[in-house]
């Protein structure tokens, strides 16, 4: 997990903001590419470029407490993928149509592409990276492998998260309840029937466990 440092003050120049992102791409950019190339560094520094209001948020992410500053416009998806480097959560439509970016927020599935990161403050977020305990996969993950409930695998994290949420609320879902529980997701490879099988199988295993 990358370390989050607290910044004082609320207003940043673009340059300060980029610096503040630390060790990542943007910080290195200042040292190499930007300076001495197309952008005049002195000019960039003197012009107080657009300002951002930021807020520090703290939330529990996959069992660990995380604090970082986010902009109001940033979605939870952006923060997870770009700032926290958790790329298991996918961006597919980026407008709440496909379910590919689904994460659990206090146990409920949300489309992280539509969810302002700021609102995650104080909450518990679980992504696909946080389901397994060490080497032990979550029963839903196991069932996806056993039933081959994926093809390209890109929509799979979203399906898995909604399946986990479904089974937490309903230990004995009927086939129609499984379909309804997953109806907010698109699998373009078209593996839905395998996904139903996996969820049913996971439900059965979890009941026995």
């Amino acid at each position: 997990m990358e370390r989050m440092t607290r910044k004082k003050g609320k207003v940043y120049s673009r340059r300060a903001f980029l610096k503040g992102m630390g060790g990542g791409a943007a910080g290195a950019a200042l040292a190499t590419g930007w300076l001495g190339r197309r952008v005049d560094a002195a000019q960039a520094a003197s012009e107080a470029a657009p300002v951002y209001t930021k807020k520090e948020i703290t939330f529990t992410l996959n069992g660990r407490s995380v604090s970082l500053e986010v902009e109001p416009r940033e979605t939870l998806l952006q923060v997870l993928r770009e700032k926290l480097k958790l790329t298991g959560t996918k961006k597919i439509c980026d407008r709440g149509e496909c379910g590919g970016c689904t994460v659990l927020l206090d146990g409920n599935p949300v489309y992280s592409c539509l969810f302002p990161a700021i609102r995650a403050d104080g909450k518990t977020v679980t992504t696909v990276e946080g389901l397994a305990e060490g080497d032990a996969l979550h029963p839903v993950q196991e069932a996806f492998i056993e039933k081959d409930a994926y093809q390209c695998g890109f929509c799979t994290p979203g399906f898995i998260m909604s399946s986990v949420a479904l089974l937490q609320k309903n230990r004995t879902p009927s086939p129609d309840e499984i379909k309804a529980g997953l109806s907010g997701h698109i699998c373009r490879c078209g593996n839905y029937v395998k996904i139903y099988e996996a969820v049913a199988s996971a439900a059965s295993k979890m009941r026995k466990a």
Partner: protein
Amino acid sequence: MKSINDDENANLTYLEVARGKEPGGAEPLAAETPVFKIIGRPTPRVDGRLIVTGRAKYTHDIVLKDMLVGKILRSPYASAEIVSLDLSAAKRIPGVLATVQLKEGRVRYEGEQVAAVAALDESTAEEALQAIRVEYKVLPHVVSPEKAVAEGAPQVLDSANVQKFNEYNRGNLEQGFAEAEVILERTYRTAFEIHHPVETHVSIAKWDEDRLTVWDSTQAVFNVRDGLARMLNIPASKIRVIKNYMGGGFGSKLGANEHTAVAAQLARETGRPVKIALSRKDNSLCVGNRPSSMITIKGGAKKDGTLTALQMTNYTSGGVGRGDRCSEPLVDIYKCPNVRVEEYTVFINAGASRPTRAPGHPQGTLAMEGFLDELAAELGLDPLELRRKNYSSKNQGDTGTPYSSKGLDQCYELGAEKIGWSRRNRKPGGGPGKKKRGIGVATQIWWGAGVPGTLADVKIHPDGSVEAVCGTQDIGCGTRTFMAVVVAETLGLEPQDITIKIGDTAYPWAPNSGGSQTAPSVAPAIRDAALKAAERMRALAAKRLDVPAAEIVLAEKKLFAKNNPEKSVSFLELARDLRREAVFHGERGDLPAGFAYNSFGAHFAEVEVDTETGQIKVLKVVAVHEIGRVLNKLTAESQVVGGVTQGLSAGLFEERVIDENSGKMVNPNLQTYKVATAQDVPEIVPIFVDLVDPRINNLGNKGLGEPPRIPSSAAIANAVYNAIGVHVREIPMTPDRVLRALRAKEASS
């Protein structure tokens, strides 16, 4: 050439191999059924853990040090002239490191690329795009094929809007119609479909001096490499293309993309890696679509169903690209001596087509199979009997080359039994009530024989670890897993023991992953390599065990004497005798001449149609396929259910809509471009005909990528016909089209 006959040393129990004779010789391969322990059984994916934990790295997920974000400005107009383009304001934005003009003069479709920027982050890049000033002179456009064929329509390209691209003749059509006792003519239409892979197209370009490395979401690393070499005018030897995981392609990711070349250009200019990821809207507009079709079939038959003549005219549009050749099913599947085909492409101001899972076949199959059902009703025959009546054993409608193997008759038999064919309405529309049920069938043909010359290596390290290496791609069909299965089977190991290395032009050459050619190309190549590795290991074991090499079996991670299993040595221990890593080169051999290599299948669908609302509910689909030997039953079943689901989706929902006034696509997203979701998909039963092709390659397997995508829309359309007594003749069969068909039926009765 490595042929199936060369494996003289192969052990017949575990190392199979059927030794057949080449064409003209004696017995074919299938005569001796090999016994496999892993091949053909269900094997979970070897990389499943990576996928379900979110650790599989797709191109979208890759972040390189110092990487910039590239973005492309695209034409908002379907047809316009760029009068002026000013990048200066964009250049001045802090954080913008490069800008480039990509187009001068005419733009001919919405989404055509005009300019590009590279910036430190996404929002800066977006800001820069908005700062680019482009003055367009808007020109007349035409976005519907019907209008584009009309006199005086705006000209889309520099050549005519309508161009004949395929003509086929056999026999004497006029004589065929003269012999006919029944003649029928019908027109079928299919909409433009968008591929919409869940991972949008994305490329990362990075230069190291004069060498370019590209990470690309592609189905074809070698195509991308060679295409970029041409576009950038640099030697292919200087380019390396890598594809690790990819979120779907369906044909839209088979070549080098314009945006990939732009990423390379921006990377060169800035001296930093550049990533360009397309948006969902971009994906809708400018990286391909399945061409529309309007197919008229006129056919003649005897009263007993014998086909005497088939004539097909197709008007197909692929935007500024070419339409699809849709005639293959009509030309090939059914016995008919007299055939004429004419196909025309119609250009319109919309993004160019790209191959879309089984190009031309779903369209041609909807028309041909729909026509057969309408003909069967006219003749008072069972639609399945009509198909059997005109069954062929040679291609070109029984006038050409014999099929190497063809299990279509078994597909009919197994499918009819499973769906309960006898339950169908004897007379279409004959069922009771307002919600009417029906059952339909449709036939599939495809190629998918694989590409001779495909290369693959098996590498054994002295510590006993094994690699299977090939520059092929896993696009979600389980390439990694079948490679592991084949190597494990051949060396007596387990699939998880094999380290798979694919998706890189640094590895041995393999064709693009399209057209159902991956498995019949790569599996025989890696099998060839593994057989050579097995031979070496047997020779080493022979020394250790003092047993003739030919009597040594590889199984259960050991090598042992066939007649004396006590005499054994573990694979791991024996590998030490190699002393250094040993590489075994495999190649997919030639296809024996004199035969046609095709896969076959039949889908059976049951539907319920609400005649008051026009809504179609698919109740069940039975999908039977003959693809030679199945390598991995588990992943093969997934491919089948996926193909059926996509066919259902196209049959009921999918349609690109362009507004004729503005020339703009009105549904460039996943909300308004409807694709099937969990609620729409019924029980799907995949069945494989157990048939090994005797000569196609050393494993007897054909490709499965396209086949299950081909006949499902047609089978559902025919089931709807069987339910309501009128063929909708157009997909997607939206409720309004169903109601219109019902009204037309009422009006004519």
